[in-house]
């Protein structure tokens, strides 16, 4: 089967001296859910932003389905319209209502009519349990609600894969579940997902593989059960003991 996301020997530097990503390789098959974890500063957020070209890379190849991300002639806007992304700080458009947030990409990028876009938005709001808030502005919503809208905004583009960059890290504990529930459901429906997260409960529940990063390198890339039962590297053992102990 043709892989959905391929990263091959990806190198990235900030300036001349600091290498954030060191020859990172990783493959995600269609329908697979891959969780990326690791200590802060390990490069996992940078790595996921390279997949849709939000961060440029200096070496290696990245492709999504049959689209080359790293090529010089790549039309990045077109590629990004097929890949959904959810951010740590939600980044909803504050000057637009919830419905407008979900419609803007559909109408301006995909060329759907306003009516089509609004119908799609209504269906997605229902799905993430936010139908009552369609006319509100982001500022009127809690963090968990905003993140569910951000997921709906990404899904509105009918993406072939979804990227999540620490989607629950900025949330109060009681709001984490409502966001994870939506993500779990999405995973069960067969969405291809790359998820940077510290939520090991989520990883246990739906991940196929866990990728552990440290110091800009992919240290481990193993099926989830194996990762939790017997991590191969000492660094992963230490990391797990730190985050699972409480």
């Amino acid at each position, binding site marked *: 089967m043709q892989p959905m996301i391929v990263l091959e020997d990806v190198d990235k530097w900030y300036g001349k001296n600091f290498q954030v990503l060191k020859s990172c390789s990783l493959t995600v098959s269609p329908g697979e859910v891959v969780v990326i974890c690791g200590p802060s500063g390990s490069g996992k957020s940078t790595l996921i932003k390279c997949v849709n070209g939000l961060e440029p890379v200096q070496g290696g190849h990245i492709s999504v389905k049959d689209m080359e991300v790293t090529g010089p002639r790549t039309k990045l*806007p077109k590629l990004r319209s097929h*890949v959904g992304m959810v951010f740590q700080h939600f*980044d909803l458009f504050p000057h637009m209502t919830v419905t407008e947030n979900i419609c*803007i*990409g559909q109408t*301006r*990028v*995909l060329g759907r009519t306003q009516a089509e876009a609004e119908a799609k938005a209504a269906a997605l709001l229902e799905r993430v349990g936010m139908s009552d808030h369609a006319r509100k*502005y982001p500022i009127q919503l809690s963090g968990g609600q905003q993140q569910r809208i*951000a997921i709906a905004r990404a899904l509105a583009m009918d993406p072939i894969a979804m990227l999540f960059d620490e989607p629950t890290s900025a949330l109060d504990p009681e709001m984490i579940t409502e966001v994870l529930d939506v993500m779990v459901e999405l995973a069960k429906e067969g969405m291809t997902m790359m998820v940077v997260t510290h939520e090991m409960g989520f990883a246990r529940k739906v991940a196929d593989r866990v990728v552990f990063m440290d110091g800009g390198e992919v240290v481990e890339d193993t099926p989830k059960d194996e990762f939790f039962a017997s991590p191969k590297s000492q660094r992963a053992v230490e990391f797990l003991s730190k985050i699972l102990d409480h």
Partner: protein
Amino acid sequence: MKGWNWDGFFEYLTNTYILEGAAVTLGLTIAAMTLGVVAGCVVALMRMSPFRILSNIAYFYTWLIRGTPLLVQLIIIYTGLPQIGIKFSVLEATLIGLVMNEAAYLSEIIRSGISSVPKGQSNAARAVGMTDVQMMRYIVAPQAARIIIPPLGNSVNGCLKTTSIASIISMEELLRRTQVLIQEKFMVLELFVVAALYYLLMTTAWDLIQRRIERHFGRGYDIKADAAEQR
């Protein structure tokens, strides 16, 4: 002592010669601000450009214009340049001076507005597949506008009054025409009070317009107002 002449005051308050002068002041302000905003956007984008040469040119421009008085610039353009063969009419010289000035000040206001939009917004816009132009138009510009409007309003208010400096190169705007009438009738206080009232009327009108614009770009930021709108 002459005392205050009410009849004279009311006569000049409705004098068409002065009214036309006020209309010229208004026209100059609208033209200077419109062209100034467009030119200011260009200067701001140049200043923020990753190309060093563009940003240096923009910096030099604002440094030069903001560092010299408009009065001196107008005299150079209208009275000085003909000496080396470059001639402008009064209106041309006035507009060039005003637009150059507004562009310099507005470029800094626009630059600060654009910089105030968080990086996450451009990432989110790009992530749904917007091009840079779409991102600027639908996401960055409306959010920058909210920050830009109050200082831009200051500039409009300032410009309405700054146009009076052009009277020095005989531009026939409100102040110039007031002075012309004073030469004829010597009602100094009455005429200047009339001129002041006209300026006040125009700046007040702008205040009202600005408040509406602020409300438009403020949506999504004021919980109370937004809730009222949804009810």
